[in-house]
């Protein structure tokens, strides 16, 4: 519990943990002078589920189910970050087709996460209809995911050494249809908000985060880029095939709520560009590697060949065994740098794995952004850093 002394004429206000605009269970202790926030102490941990501890007794393949539940709005990006880290640990390279499918899915996921952000952010500031539109389009992405993996949200589709399965025949037409309608939909959201006077009044010059502060506080993703720092891991330290795609890093100038809003809106369009390129240039080939120590053999081989049966048995009882060592691998998640630190001691279970969640660091900078703003602005600022508490508390 955070205990703070009351000084002079100020008032303490408890915001959360059940406040709807905190997007999960975040508690903020605000010290107010009239309606102005002069101090803020975030209190986190309400969603702590001990993922890192639980992961230590699961096999490498099983941990994917945990990462899915961490950033529940962009779970394929979490899967991708974890899988890339383990693949780096194993020292394997995946086929070209796998990389392209992963990039495609990652960008769809980024759009889907940004849609939830936009909907809830606008809802917090009183624009109800945007929320309904955003969730309508997000549903299309969830449909695509369901069609691929059978599950709408906790997909576990990206696996170590490849994918869960090849793309379905319905996948391409579905994505093409989405690509056709989506630019118009983003235009529609922009029509509702970008030049809306009330929206600009609520967001311009609110929650300003200077670039140096943002870097010092470890902010990443649109929160950092809104302040004008072009740090996008997809471009700066390309991973998983992003070097093949043509897109721009979107940066803001002032670092206020409106700039972060603009950043994410433009990022959605950039993501659509990548999805289009990935779909048009999708190479043919296998959808997972052919290493029996990492991925299970096909079913028909298991029932006919002794060696395949042994491989299958070993893989599910003992797991895959990376060499002793440690790796850190980060990707650009929807909210920023999503990093995984995995330590192997040569057994089938990770000796330790740790996630660097972008929201954790973005949230840490929240008190600095909120200083001397009104209580009603706090709601706008929280919305603009797009926190997911599942990822903060892990």
């Amino acid at each position, binding site marked *: 519990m955070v205990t703070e002394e009351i000084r002079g004429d100020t008032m303490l206000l408890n915001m959360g943990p059940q406040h709807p605009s905190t997007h999960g269970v975040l508690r903020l202790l605000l010290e107010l002078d009239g309606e102005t926030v002069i101090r803020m102490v975030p209190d986190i941990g309400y969603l702590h589920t001990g993922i890192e*501890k639980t992961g230590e007794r699961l096999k490498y393949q099983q941990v994917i189910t945990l990462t899915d539940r961490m950033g529940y709005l962009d779970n394929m990006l979490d899967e991708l970050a974890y899988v890339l880290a383990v693949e780096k640990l194993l020292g394997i390279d995946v086929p070209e087709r796998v990389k392209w499918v992963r990039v495609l899915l990652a960008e769809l996921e980024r759009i889907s996460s940004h849609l939830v952000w936009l909907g809830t952010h606008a809802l917090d500031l009183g624009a109800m209809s945007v929320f309904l539109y955003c969730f309508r389009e997000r549903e299309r992405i969830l449909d695509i995911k369901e069609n691929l993996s059978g599950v709408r949200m906790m997909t576990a589709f990206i696996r170590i050494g490849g994918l869960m399965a090849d793309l379905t025949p319905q996948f391409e037409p579905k994505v093409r249809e989405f690509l056709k309608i989506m630019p118009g939909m983003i235009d529609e959201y922009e029509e509702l908000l970008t030049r809306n006077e009330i929206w600009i009044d609520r967001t311009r010059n609110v929650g300003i985060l200077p670039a140096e502060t943002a870097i010092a506080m*470890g902010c990443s993703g649109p929160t950092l880029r809104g302040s004008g720092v072009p740090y996008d891991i997809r471009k700066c330290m390309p991973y998983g095939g992003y070097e093949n795609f043509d897109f721009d890093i979107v940066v803001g100038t002032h670092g206020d709520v409106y700039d972060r809003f603009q950043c994410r809106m433009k990022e959605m369009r950039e993501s659509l560009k990548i999805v289009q390129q990935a779909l048009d240039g999708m190479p043919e080939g296998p959808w997972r590697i052919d290493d029996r120590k990492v991925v299970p053999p096909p079913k028909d081989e298991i029932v006919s060949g002794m060696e395949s049966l042994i491989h299958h048995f070993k893989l599910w009882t003992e797991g895959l065994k990376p060499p002793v060592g440690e790796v*850190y691998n980060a990707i650009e998640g929807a909210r920023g740098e999503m*990093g995984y630190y995995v330590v192997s001691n040569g057994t089938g279970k990770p*000796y330790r794995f740790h996630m660097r969640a972008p929201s954790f660091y973005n949230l840490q900078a929240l008190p600095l952004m909120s200083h001397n703003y009104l209580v009603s602005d706090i709601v706008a600022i929280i919305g603009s850093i797009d926190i997911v508490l599942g990822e903060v508390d892990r």
Partner: protein
Amino acid sequence: MTPEDAAAALRERFGETIQDVLRFRGEVSAVIPRESVPEVCLYMRDDLGFNFLEDITAVDWLDRSPRYDVVYHMTSFKDWIRFRLKTLVDAENGPPTVIPVWPAANWAEREVWDLFGIEFQDHPQLERLLMPEGWIGHPLRKDFPQTQITLPRPRAEKIEEIS
């Protein structure tokens, strides 16, 4: 500059203080003694351009002495490279805090204290971050059981006080 150059620069500047340089899968880490952590970090930030702290975490090697690795990951926005610093510590003798170098370290070190019990020296607020207040033990230690733990009742005392 590459991570190798950074390691060479560290060797040149600090000499024997750099206990070891590890390479694995293209990643470079330097092992340093715990008391020189702030000094090395400051040098890395100001002279080598590692201005962005990615993460601080720890690893518990149960039977080893000193028992824990504290691991720092950092990125240079000048050259777009990553580097890892490691220091071997015991829980009661943690490294000095690096908040003056990177303010982002505040919650990261607090989390490591919360989950591993490593005492960072001069940290302004080593309090529970993720676990509830009044929790006994540090869950990410390898000797902390994964199941069947008796949960502490942090609020019990307070309720008695009120009634």
